C-alpha cells in the first residue's frame, strides 16, 4: 500500500483525476486506499495497475473501479490510449479483458449475473455514498447545536454559506455531498432544500430522528467494509504501521527484519 512513483506533469494530472474514482463500497478514493500500484505515461499512452485488499474482492466492484479508472484516465485531451490492469484477483483476466476492450460487464460475466447489468449496483452505491456524506454534514450541524427544524429547512444557498471549520468531518464531506446533490438533480436552485431523501423528498423535522438512525446503519456497514479493507490491504501488502518504532513481533512474522527499504519501487514487492 502507498503511492506509486508518479513522474511528470501528465502522470500527475492522471493521478489527480484518479482521486475521483472511489471504491463503491467505501466511498473513499482509490488513491487514498492505496489500491493504485503503478501509473506510467508514455507518448500519450497511460498504463495503470491496481490491486485490491484480497483476491476475493467482489468482481463487480473490481469492474466498477477498473471502468472508473479507464474513464478518468481517458479524460485529458492528450491521452490516446489507456491500459488498466487488475492484479492478483480471482477474476483478474476477465475483468481486464472486459475493461480494456470496452465490453459490458454483463457480457463478460453473463453466466454469473443473471442477465442483469451493473447499473443497479451503481445506483445502490451512489445512494449509499449520498446518504453517508449527508449524515456527516448533519452530524456536524447537530454538534453545533442546530435544531431539527433548522436542519430540515436549510436551503442550498444556506448550505453553501455554512461555516463548518470546527467540524472537520462535516467540512470534508460538505463539497462531496453537494456534488451528488447537484449532479443528480436533487437540489438545483438556491431556494431548494439542501437535505432531502434519495427520492428527492423533503425531510420533516419530526422525522429527522428516524432518518438519522437509517443513515447511521448505512455508515456502520460502510465502516465495516472500510476497516476490513484497510486491515486486509495492510496485511496483504505487508505494510503494517511501524512508524518510527523498534521492530515488533509483526515485523519478525512478516520477515521485515532487517527493515525493508521504504524507497523500493512498487514492482519490487509483487
Amino acid at each position: 500500500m502507498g503511492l506509486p512513483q508518479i513522474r511528470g506533469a501528465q502522470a500527475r494530472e492522471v493521478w489527480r483525476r484518479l482521486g475521483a474514482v472511489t471504491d463503491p463500497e467505501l466511498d473513499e478514493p482509490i488513491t487514498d486506499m492505496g489500491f493504485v500500484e503503478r501509473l506510467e505515461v508514455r507518448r500519450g499512452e497511460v498504463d495503470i495497475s491496481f490491486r485490491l485488499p484480497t483476491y476475493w474482492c467482489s468482481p463487480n466492484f473490481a469492474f466498477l473501479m477498473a471502468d472508473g479508472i479507464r474513464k478518468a484516465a481517458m479524460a485529458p485531451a492528450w491521452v490516446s490510449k489507456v491500459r488498466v490492469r487488475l492484479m492478483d484477483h480471482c477474476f483478474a483476466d476477465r475483468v481486464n479483458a472486459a475493461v480494456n476492450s470496452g465490453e459490458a460487464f454483463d457480457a463478460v460475466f453473463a453466466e454469473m449475473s443473471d442477465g442483469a447489468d451493473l447499473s443497479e449496483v451503481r445506483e445502490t452505491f451512489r445512494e449509499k455514498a449520498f446518504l453517508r456524506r449527508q449524515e456527516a454534514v448533519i452530524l456536524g450541524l447537530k454538534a453545533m447545536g442546530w435544531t431539527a427544524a433548522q436542519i430540515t429547512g436549510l436551503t442550498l444557498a444556506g448550505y453553501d454559506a455554512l461555516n463548518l471549520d470546527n467540524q472537520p468531518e462535516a467540512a470534508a464531506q460538505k463539497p462531496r455531498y453537494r456534488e451528488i446533490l447537484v449532479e443528480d438533480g436533487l437540489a438545483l436552485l438556491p431556494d431548494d432544500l439542501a437535505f432531502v431523501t434519495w427520492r428527492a423528498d423533503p425531510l420533516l423535522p419530526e422525522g429527522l430522528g428516524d432518518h438519522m438512525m437509517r443513515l447511521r446503519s448505512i455508515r456502520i456497514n460502510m465502516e465495516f467494509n472500510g476497516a476490513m479493507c484497510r486491515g486486509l490491504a495492510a496485511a496483504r501488502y505487508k505494510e503494517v504501521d511501524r512508524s518510527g518504532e523498534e521492530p515488533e513481533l509483526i515485523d519478525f512474522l512478516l520477515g521485515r527484519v532487517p527493515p525493508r527499504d521504504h524507497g523500493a519501487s512498487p514492482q519490487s514487492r509483487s
Partner: protein
Amino acid sequence: MYTTPDGKEIFVLDCHTHFWNGSPENQRNIHGKQFIDCFYAYHTGLSPKEQLWEKSRFEKQSVEQVYRDLFIDGPDDMAIIQSTYLKDFYKEGFSSIERSTQLANVNPGRFIVNGSFDPRDGEKALEYIHYMKETFDIKGVKMYTAEWNGDSKGWKLTDPAAYKCFELCEKLGIRNVHVHKGPTIIPLSKDAFSVDDVDYAATDFQGLNWIIEHCGLPRLDDFCWIATQETNVYAGLAVALPFIHARPRYFGEIISELLFWIGPEKILFGSDYAIWTPQWLVEKLWAYQIPEDIAAEHGVQLTDEIKEKILGLNAARLYDIDVAAKRAELAQTPVRIAAE
C-alpha cells in the same frame, strides 16, 4: 470457564470455531492458498500485536494446541466446531467432520461438532445428511453459500434443492443452521452481501434456528430488520467482536444496534478460532463498556448479565445444554492433553 476480576465464574460456549487444514500440502490450487492467506490477513488485521501467530502455526493446528488455546489458556467451557469443505480448493477439505470428530473424542464433552452439506449435490446431499445424523448425531450444520462447486460459484438458502435439505434437517432434529453471511463474491449482478434469503428460509422453517455468523456484516441493518421480525434468527458475533480491540468505539455501535434491534437473548459469542483466540476476546468483552454517548443514543446497556448470556447461556439454550449439569460434569473431567 471465565473467572471475572471479582471472582464470578462465567460459562463460555464458543459458537464458532474450526479445526482446519489450510497448509500447502492440502491446498489443491492457488485458490486454496489465497483462501487461507485471506484468513491470515483477518488475523493480522484485527489481532492485538502480542496475539499474532506465525503463518505456519496459523495454517494448521495440532490437537494439543487447539485444546490449549480454547480450554487451558482460553476460557471456553465448550466450543462448536464448524465444518467447511471447500473441496474445489483443498484436497481433503478445509475442515471435515471426520477430522474434527477425532479432535473432539480426545476430551469428550467439550466439543459440539457440526456438519455441513452442499444442496447442489441433490440426492447425495440428502443421503449425506442422513449419514452425518446416524454417524455423528449432529445437532447443527454450517452453511457456506459462497462455496464454489464446479461451474457454480454459490447458492442461496431459498434454492429448491436447499429447501429439501432443510426439510430433512427439521425432520431429523438437526435444528441449528449456522449461515456464513459476510463478504462473498456472488451473485455478481446484485449487492453481493444480501441477507434476503435468510428472511424467507427462517419464515418457512420455523422449527430451525438460524444463526447468522458475522451478523450479516456488512449488511447489519438488513440483518437486524430480519432478525427483529423472525423469532428464530440469531446473531453470531464472529468477526464483529475483534473490533473491540482495533476499533472499540465502532464495536460499541455494532453491539448497540444488535441490542436495540434484536435484544440480548439472540446474540452469540464466537471466537472464529483459529482466526482469533477466545482468551483475549472474552477478557476484552467482559471489561468492555459501550461509550456513553452511543449507549444513550440507542438507549441500551451492556450489563454483566447480558454479557453472560452472550458468552454462553443463549447458545446453551439452542443446543439443549443444562448449564449447571454441564458445569458439574466438566469440573469432574479437566481437559487432558499429551505431555510435551
